[in-house]
């Protein structure tokens, strides 16, 4: 009897906490809602794919990328001198590849709902737009395309945004990742040696912050590239960046085709 009473009391208390919904509130600006702070200078630490990232790989080296036969055919004709002559040195610096490049990134808030990532390698700028997409989308495809962003939410949030308090989210369900979807891309290279991606390519990214036992701060970005023209399935990589105290090692350099 007593335990039943306790349970009912708990339910009643929870019901009191569950206030009737008020008028809809405007969403908090993404900058204020950020569950983690990704701003600052970060360096990519090349502990993976060293010989495909720190040096330009050989023509025809598609290792680790799920390319189809058409991509292999196109990749086998790679000629960096033609890209240089055409002013296309930035083909390997587009959104599908830029976070895999060796270099530093500088992350700042351009405004309350736009996160900016600048790269010193290739001097590229990416803008992550939070909130509803603009009415006028599209325009000319670019190397960095258009990126829409969200802070990943806890499971159950969409279907049941106001859960009954005693059954509210359990440990481990609070989202704190940055999710980014990029499209409207100018065709380019997944790798500097001419492994192609098409204008139909899209990029999903998840940025996860972690702090290590020695106090170092990192983020790892999981990058999922889909391209119906050149890939047989999603290409999944994850790249690791360590935070630096300042921009003293920031070293802008232009795109290079080779």
């Amino acid at each position, binding site marked *: 009897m007593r335990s039943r009473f306790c349970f009912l009391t708990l339910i009643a208390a929870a019901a009191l906490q569950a206030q009737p919904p008020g008028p809809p509130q405007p969403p908090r600006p993404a900058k204020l809602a950020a569950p983690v702070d990704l701003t600052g200078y970060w360096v990519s630490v090349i502990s993976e794919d060293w010989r495909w990232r720190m040096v330009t790989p050989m023509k*025809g080296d598609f290792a680790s*990328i799920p390319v189809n036969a058409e991509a292999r055919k196109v990749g086998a004709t790679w000629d960096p001198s033609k890209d240089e002559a055409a002013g296309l040195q930035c083909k390997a610096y587009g959104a599908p590849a830029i976070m895999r490049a060796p270099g530093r990134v500088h992350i700042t808030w351009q405004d309350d709902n736009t996160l900016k990532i600048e790269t010193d390698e290739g001097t590229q700028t990416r803008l992550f737009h939070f909130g509803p997409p603009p009415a006028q989308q599209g325009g000319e495809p670019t190397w960095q395309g258009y990126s829409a962003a969200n802070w990943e939410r806890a499971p159950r949030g969409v279907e049941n945004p106001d859960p009954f308090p005693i059954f509210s989210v359990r440990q481990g369900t609070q989202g704190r990742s940055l999710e980014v979807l990029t499209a409207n891309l100018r065709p380019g290279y997944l790798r500097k040696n001419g492994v192609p991606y098409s204008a139909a390519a899209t990029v999903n990214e998840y940025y996860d912050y972690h702090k290590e036992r020695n106090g170092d701060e990192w983020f790892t970005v999981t990058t999922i590239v889909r391209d119906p023209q050149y890939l047989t399935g999603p290409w999944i990589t994850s790249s690791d960046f360590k935070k630096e105290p300042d921009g003293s090692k920031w070293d802008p350099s232009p795109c290079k085709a080779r």
Partner: protein
Amino acid sequence: MQRIAFLFALLAIPALAQVDFTGEWAPAYHEDGPERLPGPELGDYMGIPLSDAGRLRADSYDADRISVVTEYQCRPHSSDYGMRGLGNLRVTRDIDLTTQTLQAFHTYMPAWGSVRTIWLDGRPHPPAYAEHTFQGFSTGVWEGNMLTITTTHLKANYLRRNGVASSDKRIVTEHWTRHGDFLTVVVVVEDPVMLTEPLVRSENWYLDPGQKIVPSFCEYAAEVPAPVGSVPHHLPGKNTFLTEVAEWYGLPAEATRGGAKTMYPEYRKTMPKPIRPAPEKCERFCVCTTLADCNLNETVQAPGGAPAPRR
């Protein structure tokens, strides 16, 4: 244009953080495929912040060791290397039926039938003198949707399976996050013997509920005739195979020796010249995303062109 609008409309519905790691996961070998599938080249220490001791130890490695020394043949992958090496993965969990709290995750990897428990019930790690095992002792805590795991009490094992060793003094931190049907695991190895700074790598799996997880078999057999009790090795300065990887891929020999300084972008400014120029076209492991397509002798050729000759 309509397609782009559709894509961004999808993103207007935020993805949901996923807390449940249980299920069957298949690895994506989309990074370092040739190293992780057929196996690394001898002398390839690229991307590893090796200490002098770690490098000396790696240089002594002779690949015949696992053919001759039967004790090495069925040596399991440790829990940290297992995440980087070959590994389909099954994750199960324990719920305490009284408290309805998550007590532990268990992982199974077919390579040597490796089983690990990751305790989430707040228990402490055992004292330093406790037994070391290949899977170690793992505890986890949640940080938002990320599961951070600390593993101690590991036996010595590999950082790369070409003789780059890890010591039994290392501590390993992992960060697991799930995004939809993708799992990313960051593995941070702190090894005061073999490394000069933490080695941070990250791996990816995709949910594959239909996959067949196979049992593990390993039999000991002397594969190469050798005197009883011998351990194939190279004495310091006597290993003549260490420059092969630099020659095959046209890389600076110094870079292939690893070390922390080689892992940062600015190293490219001081990097020495290659021993010899890279071949005009890829000759080794030119595709390599699965065990089925990782063909050593596959040479990519331009349409109408002759394949580059193999050395």
